[in-house]
């Protein structure tokens, strides 16, 4: 890159933007990482394009390696909610019938807590940013920018957006939404009452702490952050006040049967191809799959490998795979009981045959884990950490060294998706290292009660029900903060009761880093510490699946209940 071009580009850029641009120009980060990170901090496509073009001329930046891993699906049509449609001809019109999970609660955008409820809510409403693909793209906000330390973020809103009732979308709606979230879902992030409308289309949000990843909190991986109109208060539900800014507007809702949405012809992303969406609710996946195969539905929002064999082997169906960060943690109480010695935990991690688990439990639909919660999909993932492989002899030796030969253990696990099967396989694999594992399915109790059962006197009070060995599930997240903070660094969901000052320091460093280099350095430490200390053995990151018939194209899904059909339709 010539100095003159670079000087021109950096004129007016903030320190954060400048740092990122320089990192790319000097070849310290790949083009893909530059675009991903640049999109989070709000660099415009035009700016990034100029930088890439300029750097390309001197060949300093490395070409991104191709990868199929993305947070959201990469269908042939698009990776964004309002992205460009597939090049193939799509018919105009038609009703897309979608088999979906029955909502377990009211359609309350703030209180919702299950995939079934997310689906209709996120079909009507949209987010400030679009994080459906690998990059963060504009949605209701056209651009965003942090201040120098990342504690204040300014969002410029899209003009000309209308609510489904025809009224204009303005900054007042965003302020009301953020105020509501600052008292609930984003309490930890947004300073209460701090969100200000600078003008009708500019909003400034002040955070409790600097956060270089804040846009991730107002996108699809925090579904409760959908932007609702200013008259929405805590407890207002979508079915009582049908509105939104999305490509489809709700016209009918029956929690027992389904929901109907009509195309929003005024949608800012352009008129949808489809006339109508019909969500057909059902409690269980088997019924939904039967519906799809029997012609009652054209698509299914989500299904798992377990029970989904029929679809995986059906040549009439298109099964889409979403690589993500969702995983299972095999937790061991690091503070008291049989697992306080790190050798025991390492032995268990070495006793697990990860590729076999992925092949058997997930039928190959998963990415290998390395005992830390950083999925390979994240731009700061450190691939240099050696992959832990099964080593039965070494595991036996470690158990012997720790004086735990022939260790007997009871493993607790929830009756959720593939977890019972995983538990059985882990039980049989650990037999090879001399462990005798008894399986115990957890009682179906509510979150709080489950945590209350905890009986340890040792801090931190983790949420493990008083047991010392088990499996717990974690869903997909756009950034790993929840895993790092809640499962590892604090006591809230810390089943392993893990306390590590170096780990906490690394997490703090990661969260306060505004530049990718800083994040990469912190994440490198995080991965290494977690992998060495093994409070949790993480065998895999499982893929999320959805399916549709061959005549459907253009659906964008996330594995978190989103099923964007703004550019979807039937093939001609």
């Amino acid at each position, binding site marked *: 890159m010539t100095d003159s071009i670079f000087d021109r580009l950096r004129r007016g850029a903030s320190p954060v933007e400048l740092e990122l641009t320089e990192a790319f120009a000097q070849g310290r980060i790949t083009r893909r990482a530059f675009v991903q990170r640049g999109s989070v901090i709000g660099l415009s496509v035009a700016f990034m394009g100029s930088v890439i073009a300029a750097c390309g001329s001197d060949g300093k930046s490395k070409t991104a390696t191709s990868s199929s891993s993305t947070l959201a699906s990469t269908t042939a049509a698009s990776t964004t909610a309002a992205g460009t449609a597939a090049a193939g001809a799509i018919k105009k019109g038609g009703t897309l019938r979608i088999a979906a999970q029955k909502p377990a609660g009211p359609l309350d955008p703030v*209180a919702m807590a*299950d995939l079934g409820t997310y689906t209709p809510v996120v079909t009507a409403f949209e987010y400030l940013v679009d994080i459906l693909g690998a990059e963060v793209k504009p949605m209701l906000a056209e651009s965003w920018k942090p201040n120098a330390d990342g504690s204040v973020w300014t969002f410029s809103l899209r003009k000309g957006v209308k609510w489904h009732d025809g009224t204009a979308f303005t900054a007042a709606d965003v302020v009301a939404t953020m105020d509501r979230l600052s008292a609930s879902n984003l309490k930890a992030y947004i300073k209460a009452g701090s969100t200000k409308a600078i003008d009708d289309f500019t909003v400034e949000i002040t955070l409790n702490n600097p956060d270089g990843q804040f846009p991730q909190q107002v996108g699809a991986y925090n579904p409760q952050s959908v932007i609702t109109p200013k008259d929405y208060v805590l407890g207002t539900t979508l079915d009582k006040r049908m509105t939104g800014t999305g490509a489809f507007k709700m016209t009918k809702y*029956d929690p027992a049967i389904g929901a109907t949405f009509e195309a929003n012809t005024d949608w800012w992303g352009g008129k949808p191809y489809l006339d109508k969406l019909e969500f057909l609710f*059902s*409690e269980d996946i088997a019924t939904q799959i039967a519906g799809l195969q*029997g012609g009652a539905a054209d698509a299914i929002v989500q299904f798992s490998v377990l029970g989904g064999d029929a679809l995986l082997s059906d040549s009439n169906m298109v099964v889409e795979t979403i690589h993500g960060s969702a995983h299972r943690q095999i937790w061991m109480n690091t503070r008291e009981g049989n697992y306080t010695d790190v050798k025991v935990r390492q032995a268990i991690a070495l006793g697990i045959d990860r590729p076999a688990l992925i092949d058997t439990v997930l039928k190959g639909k998963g990415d290998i884990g390395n005992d830390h919660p950083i999925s390979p999909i994240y731009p700061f993932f450190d691939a240099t950490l050696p992959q832990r492989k099964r080593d039965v002899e070494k595991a036996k030796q470690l158990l012997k060294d720790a004086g735990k030969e022939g260790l007997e253990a009871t493993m607790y696990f929830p009756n959720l998706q593939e977890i019972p099967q995983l538990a059985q396989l882990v039980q049989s694999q650990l037999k090879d290292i001399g462990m005798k594992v008894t399986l115990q399915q957890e009682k179906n109790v*509510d*979150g709080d009660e489950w945590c209350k059962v905890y009986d340890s006197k040792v801090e931190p009070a983790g949420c493990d029900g008083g047991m010392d060995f088990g499996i717990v599930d974690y869903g997909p997240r756009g950034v790993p903060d929840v895993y790092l903070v809640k499962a590892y660094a604090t006591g809230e969901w810390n089943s392993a009761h893990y306390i590590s000052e170096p780990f906490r320091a690394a997490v703090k460093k990661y969260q306060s880093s505004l530049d990718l280099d800083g994040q990469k350095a912190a994440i490198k430490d995080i991965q290494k510490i977690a992998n060495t200390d093994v409070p949790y053995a993480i065998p895999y990151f499982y893929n999320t699946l959805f399916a549709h018939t061959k005549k459907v194209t253009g659906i964008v899904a996330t594995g978190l209940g989103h099923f964007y059909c703004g550019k979807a339709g039937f093939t001609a």
Partner: protein
Amino acid sequence: MVRYLLRRLASAVVTLWLLATIVFLIVSVLPGDVGRRVLGPFALKEDVARYNHQIGTDRPLIRQYLTTIRRLFTLDFGNSYQTASSVNKIIFPALFRSGKLALLAFVITIPISIAAGIFAARRQDKPSDRIVVTTGLASSSIPEFVTAAVLLSVFSVHWRLGKVFANPPDGTSVIGQFRYLIMPALAMVVAYFGYITRMSRAGVIHGLQSDYARTATMKGLSKGEVMRRHILRNALAPTITVISVQIGYLFGGIIGVEKVFNYAGLGSTMLNAVTHKDIPVLQAAVLLVGVVYMSSTLLADVLIAFLNPRVRLETTR
């Protein structure tokens, strides 16, 4: 007859009160916190407490009980804990859907099984009788959800002759609705055919062997007339009683069939309410099924009284 009806209605009210009390006691001992279940495991404790206060589950049990009884008489069951919408808007459409399915199942089952019962009774111990009895026994010993699953995978998924999801979309014509409901209805037909056939066969055999049938035959009446005017009237009484009990079951008990065909009837509504500890919906749905049971048995008793003069005379005393 009027006094008889009034007496029955009075006992129905007492039964409903007992039912409401039992349901209340049962749901009160169900484990789990309603607010936590509705708002999810990650909701803040304060929000859970506020929600519980809002819906009244933090009040003393006796006050909650009085609310339940008041609702029973005002027919205002409040709002669903799960969906926040009116309970009446949930249970009455579900009742209507169950009613449609039950009606179709009975319209098919009753004539076929009564005819089969008469046919078998008249050929008692002959091969054709054996075939009817064995078929009936076999069909009624298959659990209805198994029949439903087979019908679904063979006829709906593989051959696409029926619908996989039995809820007809709005505006579907009567004929169209028949296509949606026929598969779950057939699953029920298979389950009840044997039962009703056996009852009617036994009743007819008993009638054929009775003195009044012999007398009627000796008077010179044709076989058909003896059957129609004398035997059937007596033979059908136990069959009607069986059917009336089955009506209540068809409204609330065919959860398996409803689940397989994803049909939003009263059975799956109740199951869903139990799963989500949606007490208002559960109470209302159970009471509704209770009302259906009582109405159908009352209707059966009136029908039997109409068919059988002896019963009629007893009720007027």
